[in-house]
């Protein structure tokens, strides 16, 4: 086997089976023609070093073969924007599902160590996202060039564009993620999915019996907040509908707080167990202050949202 044949053989090993022999034959023929041309110009056969120089000019066999690969990218250039958007949504969905699964896993658990649970949650989000990334990439690779983005968006109409203000800011995804995590965790805590004591010390909250009657309503508000937070993560801009939903959630929240304010000792803090335990009923004043703070924040936020609503 001479240098040219050895080179062709090496290129062949990197080629797809369907074109392997065809491309290799053509490459060998081209190399032989080039060798003949150079020999004719020099008036003598090429030396081994000159043949090797010719092959060096052609480049590494793997690179030569790469030019014949049917498609050198995993995701076609035209589908890449769709791929990136789906990847983003997928990671958000995975994070939301993992968060809910973590909360569900706490149900019935004797104790919860947040400092252990959080790294586990982050790791599981990363792990699942990597699997999702691989699957999504595989799907797009298989789709290949057979689907173009024009096919996917063929039914798109300008009327579907969201009504937003030109200079409107996007909703911070970090803030929304924080809001989502806190809301899910609070809902789990309130519904005793996770223990209501804090840390290793037996510090707990005792809710009065009246809470049971209000719990479905509180859960409804929390569920609404979670759905809205997910919607803000997926589509991080303010529309009139989102503003109305956000403002609408303040109304039941304030009503619920007003009802709680009317109760006698709705919440008691318990520290310790057995005979050594001590209890503190949270005073009406503390509850009133917390509610006033929330009401003020709700008022401030509502004014801003109404201004934004009018600007849209």
């Amino acid at each position, binding site marked *: 086997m001479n240098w040219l044949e050895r080179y062709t053989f090496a290129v062949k090993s990197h080629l797809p089976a369907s*074109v392997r022999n*065809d*491309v290799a*034959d*053509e*490459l060998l*023929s*081209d190399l*032989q*023609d*080039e060798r003949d*041309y150079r020999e004719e110009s020099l008036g003598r056969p090429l030396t081994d070093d000159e043949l090797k120089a010719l092959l060096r000019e*052609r*480049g590494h066999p793997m*690179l*030569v073969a790469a*030019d*014949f690969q049917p498609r050198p990218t995993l995701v076609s250039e035209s589908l890449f924007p769709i791929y990136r958007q789906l990847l983003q949504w997928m990671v958000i969905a995975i994070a939301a599902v993992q968060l809910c699964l973590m909360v569900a896993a706490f149900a019935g658990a004797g104790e919860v160590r947040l400092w252990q649970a959080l790294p586990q949650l982050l790791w599981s989000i990363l792990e699942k996202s990597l699997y999702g990334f691989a699957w999504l990439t595989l799907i797009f690779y298989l789709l290949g060039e057979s689907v173009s983005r024009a096919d996917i968006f063929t039914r798109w109409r300008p009327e579907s564009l969201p009504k937003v203000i030109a200079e409107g800011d996007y909703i911070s995804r970090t803030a929304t993620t924080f809001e989502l995590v806190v809301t899910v965790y609070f809902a789990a805590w309130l519904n005793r999915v996770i223990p209501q004591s804090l840390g290793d010390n037996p510090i707990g909250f005792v809710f009065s019996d009246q809470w049971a009657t209000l719990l479905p309503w509180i859960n409804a508000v929390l569920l609404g907040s979670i759905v809205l937070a997910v919607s803000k993560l997926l589509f991080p801009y303010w529309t009139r509908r989102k503003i109305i939903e956000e403002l609408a959630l303040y109304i039941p929240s304030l009503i619920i707080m007003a009802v709680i304010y009317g109760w006698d000792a709705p919440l008691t803090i318990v520290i310790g167990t057995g005979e050594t335990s001590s209890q503190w009923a949270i005073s009406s004043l503390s509850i009133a202050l917390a509610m006033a703070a929330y009401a003020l924040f709700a008022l401030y936020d509502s004014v801003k949202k109404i201004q934004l609503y009018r600007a849209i």
Partner: protein
Amino acid sequence: MPDDPDRLTKLTMELRRGLLVMAVLEALVQPHYGYSLRRFLQEQGLEVDEGTLYPLLRRLESQTLLESEWQVQEGRKRRVYRLSKTGDSARVAMNMEWQSLNKALANITETTP
């Protein structure tokens, strides 16, 4: 930076890529095998490396713009390419487009101070 040599090379390559298809279609009005086509283009002043030309020939053939057949010439197996009917129509259309683009470019250059 417009005078960045890498960027300039990329811009030149982009420009050549489209023109190369035209040049190959024009050249293959007469049948050629790969090496003879490369030599022919080179003699006309268009240097093309094999890593560009052969994959391009295959792509154009898969798009039915070219036809090819293996022949034995001078005791050597050679794949001879020729323009198909579709390829000939594409060649005429591209030529017209090229004339029109050239004219537009000349107009732009003239009207730009």
